[in-house]
């Protein structure tokens, strides 16, 4: 197996395009596990951690741009980002443990395409856009369009996600992410929910977006959520409807980690609770 550590995106794209079966290596917290267990044996790994642009967080007129290989610890250390996107950053901070945090990236989390990836529902709720560079040039797609099934993505051969753009947004906006795991860390979500809200001055919800995870082959956008939430102040009946909608949208499986019935219920509970947290945060947000 070859290891390459290019210094530019172009070099990385070229390497990926020329070596058949090469894989991108970011933090390696998914990929190295797969190599060791024998479930992946690529001809080459292309380490993108030495590509400067992939390791930075910047704030521009468009919003926050997070390099695809930035680690969870770097994300949760970035005060302005945490203030603007408490939900996305708490999702990134939930991955693994202190050790894993030093390496795990958003790009790896999203592109590994696990249905249970923690940042994906939060990024979906945040309307994050993935910026991709490949042999065919540059393109941008909403985050929910990357994973197409467990372990499968829409990325073409040679394509690399270079960054995620979290759009600028109005005052009184905030997000939240919650997941359920039987433990408190080092575990995989049984269900997860990300909620992003913008409030009117009177406290009613002006804009809402909800993503749910671990309850279908990919994370899902809860399309009907704005229809339930906008115009309300998250009254109990509204929350109940949200919970029901999340449960109904879920297409979970029965496995050793949870039953279908359990996952449907819990994803509703998490959506409800995340909405309440986002709402409280949005009230105070500038």
């Amino acid at each position, binding site marked *: 197996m070859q290891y390459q550590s290019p210094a530019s995106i172009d070099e990385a794209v070229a390497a990926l395009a020329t070596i058949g079966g090469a894989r991108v290596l970011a933090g390696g917290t998914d990929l190295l596990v797969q190599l060791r267990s024998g479930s992946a044996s690529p001809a080459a790994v292309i380490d993108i951690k030495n590509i400067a642009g992939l390791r930075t967080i910047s704030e521009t007129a468009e919003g926050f741009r997070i390099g695809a290989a930035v680690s969870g610890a770097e994300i949760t250390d970035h005060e302005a980002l945490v203030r603007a996107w408490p939900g996305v950053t708490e999702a990134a901070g939930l991955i693994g443990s202190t050790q894993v945090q030093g390496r795990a990236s958003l790009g790896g989390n999203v592109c590994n395409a696990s249905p249970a990836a923690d940042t994906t529902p939060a990024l979906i709720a945040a309307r994050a856009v993935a910026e991709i560079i490949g042999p065919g040039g540059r393109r941008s797609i909403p985050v929910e369009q990357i994973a197409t099934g467990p372990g499968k993505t829409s990325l073409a051969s040679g394509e690399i996600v270079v960054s995620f753009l979290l759009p600028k947004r109005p005052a009184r906006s905030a997000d939240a992410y919650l997941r359920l795991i*039987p*433990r408190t860390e*080092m*575990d*995989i979500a*049984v269900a997860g929910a990300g909620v992003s809200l913008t409030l009117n001055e009177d406290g009613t919800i002006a804009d809402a977006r909800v993503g749910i995870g671990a309850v279908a082959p990919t994370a899902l956008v809860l399309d009907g959520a704005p229809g339930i939430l906008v115009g309300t102040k998250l009254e109990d009946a509204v929350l109940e409807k949200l919970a029901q909608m999340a449960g109904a949208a879920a297409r979970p499986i029965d496995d*050793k980690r949870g039953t279908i019935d*359990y996952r449907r219920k*819990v994803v509703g*509970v998490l959506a409800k609770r995340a909405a309440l947290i986002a709402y409280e945060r949005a009230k105070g947000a500038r």
Partner: protein
Amino acid sequence: MTYEPKSLKVVGTRPVRHDGPDKVTGRANYASDFTLPGMLWGSILRSPHAHAKVISINTDKARAHPGVKAVITGADLPLPPPGVTQAGESAINTQHLAKNLLARDKVFYDGHPVAAVAAISEAIAREALGLIEIEYEVLPHVIDVDEAMKADAPLLHDDLFTEGVEPRPETPSNIAKRIVVSKGDIEKGFAEADIVIERTYTTKAVHQGYIEPQGCVANYAEDGQAMVWCSSQGQFVIRDLCITMLGMEASSLKVIPAEIGGGFGGKTTVYLEPLALMLSKASGRPVKMTMSRGEVLRATGPHSGSSMTARIGAMKDGTITSAEVVIKFQAGAFPGSPVGAAVMFCSAPYDIPNLSITGYDVVVNIAKVHAYRAPGAPNGAFAFETVLDELAHELKMDPIDFRAKNSAVEGSKSPYGPTYGPLGGIECLSSAKNHPHYKVNLGPNQGRGVASGFWINIGGQSAATVVVNRDGTISLVEGCPDIGGSRASLAMMCAEVLGIAAEKVRPSIVDTTAIAFNDVTGGSRVTFATGIAVVQATEDAVRQMRERAAKMWDIDVDQVGWRDGAAQEMNGNRSLTISQIAQKAAKTGGQIMGHASINASGAGPSLTTHLCDLEVDRETGKITILRYTAFQDAGKAVHPSYVEGQMQGGVVQGIGWALNEEYIHDENGRLENAGFLDYRMPVASDLPMIDAVIIEVPNPNHPFGVRGVGEAPIVPPLAAIANAIYDATGVRMRDLPFSPPKVLAALEAAEKAKANG
């Protein structure tokens, strides 16, 4: 040796453990840290089936691989003569062990070894496994213990006839043994009771979960002399099992103990060592073998899953009149579960006039179970202590008062025979009742559970040598691997007798050729039994030093006392320190070395009571442990930090067992969660600080009053947590583990039942 109260300078203090720095800096050498020149890598081919006939094995292609230096199968390991080897808490049947090491005509579980290879690299060894062709005929399997006991269950062994029933059954079954403990007349007892409660419980197989997987290096020389480096709970049991398997002489095999990364009972037997020796013999090269976590979970000692029914009766005043318990344990592929301990000890904290407790040892298609911390006792206590909680509620009695009213005390007859000596049960209960923890108010969805536990503790064979160095330091030589701070405790007892600082005594655990046979580190025996050997060996050294001082002063030895690390002239004020005596040793009769080799009896049982506060998330079923306090009789805490550490560790393992740990098999009997992601042991952030309250009711049979402490703390948590869940929610959960989906389902079922009136 008997207990005498004395003023102590070292015992009871908290020095830095001797092995601590090496462990925190990473210098300590564990099993897989050893490497020899020319070493090969061994790897094991394991059955993918839970139960199958082995029709044929073809190893030709693997042998033809240029990197492969040896291949072995069951045919290369003849069955040893029948016999049973005692390994701490487990009795090991030698023929079953051989069949477990390498399967013959049948495989009995997913992960059962079928062949092993040694190759020049780990990768080639693994590749070679893929070249071995095995034809199986898959048989129906059975894993659940109740299912396995049914007459039409798939039969594992056609030569297994239930022991312990008269007359001996005429047909074979999966029930290897029936054990009964009884006293009085239970039906008469139940007739006297005002209230009788009967409940059924189930638990799943769980694993010891030691962090260090099994590993070893073996080197078998042309002249038949061999060495094994491995981590285990007893280098002598490893040696004895290996020589029994391979027909070697004891003096031909030297087993060198590595530092051990956890054992909890699971490292008192062999899985790799005999195979590594065989591969080394066949290849003429040293062979290293290490297990992956998946292999550890699939093929090394889980602890039995169980099914239990407990029926207990009490009078209105709280007196328990009768108890009947039936306990069925999974034994795994071969007989020998620890059901006996569950039978003997589930009611042992109490003095109950009428008892009938029956245990069944049942073979099923999982790995042969092996000892796990207080083997069997937590299961029994789970059933017994939760029925007690229900009785206390029905009787409107405080659960601690109810237990105290029925507690066994000194002079009570134990359910398993002997009459108890001094016992700390009442002291634990009253300490719990008076503790601030018991008085804290709880919020909504929070609950508190109480449960007690008992572990018998054992003595056994131990040896120790105390070598006096010229500079007055001491080399303490012993033979029991240190799994819980025993080096520190033993050195402290040696230092106490000598009257010097613990740091001046350097303990080391030596190989099988450097000290007499020692039983395994198990049964919470080392601080007790090896402690006695150390005290005797130290006293032997002190006696010799007094003699040397007498010689140097030219007075009678009776005139020489010993205090604060020095010989003291009784009728004068001369004194000689250890180093002053040691430096003259060559001239006064040679080097000074104290020695003792004993078989200790009189280990005092350890009793314990736990308080657990938890909160239940009613919408997700997730349980958070809020506060946990363990009260335990240690007899005497030699090094209180390590007693607390044992109590905390046992509690944490119990919490994991209660909340999430379980073996999950698919419909083909394959283990679905053979890794720490889905075999969910607790992580540090799951737990509050576990508070440990040490009670000291001295054991009369140890010079400092020591009782074993390592195992008792895992006994009460299952019941304490079940009882706390009831207190929080009003729902009784009786099937482990209490994982979020199961808790939510139970809460919803209770709601439904309520709604339906």
